[in-house]
């Protein structure tokens, strides 16, 4: 591989890693607060669809981003209300959020196509999305990463958030508003996951496809659990998944590898990484509080 090809590969891997990194960053904050949102996948899908639908309906790009973030925020708050506020079973709530998003975006996609086709014809409905420059999102993600890396360990609110995750009872006793902080973390996580979906739409096929997240939300979730509480490892995992995705495209075009083997690769890698990662997983992160 020449130096140019190598550089192209790395850049492509970086772009492919962005949705996972962005969603993973949000989920990292959620995980630190002692919650876990299995519905990242659905939130991403909802974000991708919202970005598509809003653009089709003639909303300017920056407003689209703001609205997508708002929708993700609402989903996060809703999930927080269900699981933290009412105490619903979080795993099932998350899985149902995914099912709901899968169904609702499919229904909504049909509706949007119908509306746009009626107004402007088939071409306008099926054309590529004019979105933001993906480079801007890479920069924004990097900035967010730095912010999280500073806020969580170095500020009071970061300390309180980590305290919620470490020992909720102790934190509560010390006067920390555990439920409020967790819901805020979930809202932030939803926000970032939805934006990750939008990023996926902009850097990907240029139009919405049913179920287009293809498990990337679950990979983000896996990256966070694999990382065992270390932000740097989330980044490494996300980049590795990105590289794997790009490698998939290359190998597929060569046709030497089984397409399915390549599609399963990220999950196999994650499973192996989980099994080999040093240190015991803190059970707390997946335990359901009844």
């Amino acid at each position: 591989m020449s130096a140019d090809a190598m550089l192209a590969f790395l850049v492509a891997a970086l772009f492919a890693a962005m949705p996972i990194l962005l969603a993973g960053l949000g989920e990292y904050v959620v995980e630190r607060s002692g919650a876990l949102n299995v519905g990242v996948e659905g939130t991403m899908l909802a974000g991708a669809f919202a970005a598509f639908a809003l653009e089709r309906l003639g909303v300017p790009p920056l407003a689209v981003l703001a609205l997508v973030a708002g929708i993700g925020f609402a989903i996060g708050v809703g999930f927080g209300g269900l699981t933290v506020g009412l105490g619903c079973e979080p795993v099932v709530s998350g899985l149902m959020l995914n099912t709901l998003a899968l169904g609702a975006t499919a229904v909504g996609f049909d509706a949007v196509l119908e509306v746009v086709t009626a107004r402007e014809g088939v071409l306008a409905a099926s054309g590529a999305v004019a979105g933001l420059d993906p480079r801007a999102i890479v920069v924004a993600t990097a900035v967010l990463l730095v912010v999280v890396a500073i806020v969580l360990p170095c500020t009071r609110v970061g300390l309180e958030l980590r305290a919620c995750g470490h020992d909720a009872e102790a934190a509560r006793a010390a006067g920390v508003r555990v439920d409020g902080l967790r819901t805020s973390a979930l809202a932030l996580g939803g926000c970032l996951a939805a934006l990750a979906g939008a990023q996926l739409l902009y850097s990907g096929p240029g139009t919405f496809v049913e179920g287009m997240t293809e498990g990337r939300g679950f990979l983000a979730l896996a990256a966070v659990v694999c990382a065992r509480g270390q932000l740097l490892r989330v980044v490494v995992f996300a980049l590795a998944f990105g590289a794997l995705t790009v490698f998939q495209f290359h190998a597929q075009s060569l046709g030497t590898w089984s397409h399915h083997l390549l599609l399963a690769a990220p999950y196999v890698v994650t499973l192996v990484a989980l099994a080999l990662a040093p240190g015991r997983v803190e059970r707390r992160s997946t335990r359901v509080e009844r």
Partner: protein
Amino acid sequence: MNARTRRGVAFVSGIAAIALLVGLTPPASVREPWQAFVLDLTRTAAPLLFSALSITVAFRAGLFCIGAEGQLWVGALGATAVATHSVPGVLPLALVLGSCAGALLSSIAGELRERRAVPELLSTLLLNFIVAQWVASMVERGPLRESSGQLTQSDPIVDAARLDGVLGVVALSFLLALVAAWGVEFLLTKTAFGLRVRAAGASEPAARLAGFPIARDRRLVFLIAGALAGLGGAIELLARTQRLLPEPFDGEGYLGIAVALVARLRPWRVVVAAIGFALIETAVKVAQTDPDLALPDGFERVVEAALVIGFLVFDAPRIRTWFARVRARPQAERSA
């Protein structure tokens, strides 16, 4: 009526209802619409029931396995591997292989949990994705691709392996699922193993203090849960599709979690909940084929998710205590 008589009445009336349904044997050619509906209903309920039972066993042991989906898939895969060849005893062999495949898949998650402390929630989820690709590759390029090589599906299973029998208007697969439900109920409530498992699920420290062999029991739970879902996958394949498709299931394993939780992890209630979910699914399917309504594609998922979320809210601890308080209030007033 005390609890015992109530249970007896429920049991007898349940048996009577099944006998009635089984007894209404219609000639195969003339079927009333409602009979076809019941048949369809029980057929739809069977895989849901198996996956929900699998989830029930795991959750009662305090294990958050969500791998029933993948286990259904490998169960179907294992059954196909045998059932496409005419070998003696093909039907039991296919069922056994299907259950073993499910159990094996589940035990991967079990070993990862016990040895490497990998959360089973995540490992089972990842295994579901891996299995999905594996099954698809087996029928697209692998050895199970149909011999004519035209479509991405396996050969049809041999006639001897078919399980599409109907007793009266009830699908045989559903009756097998009922037997499995009885088995799970027996295992959980009438055996020492069941007691240990429930104890470990309710409070691990307590079970540990009691000296229960928690690690060994958990491994067994993983195997049983996997075998149940694997068996469900095998039965569904032999009873319904009768050849392996690249995507043999559509989320039944995930829906099973909701079924099990709606039933509060009690096997007999799981039966009722599975029938309820199947009823909704069948009704939505009927509505979707109606051209007048023109329901869009993802509609059934929205209905499904909305229902489960609605139930979760209704069942949420804080809502439940609120209900209890509302119900208690009139009595308090009366006594005052």
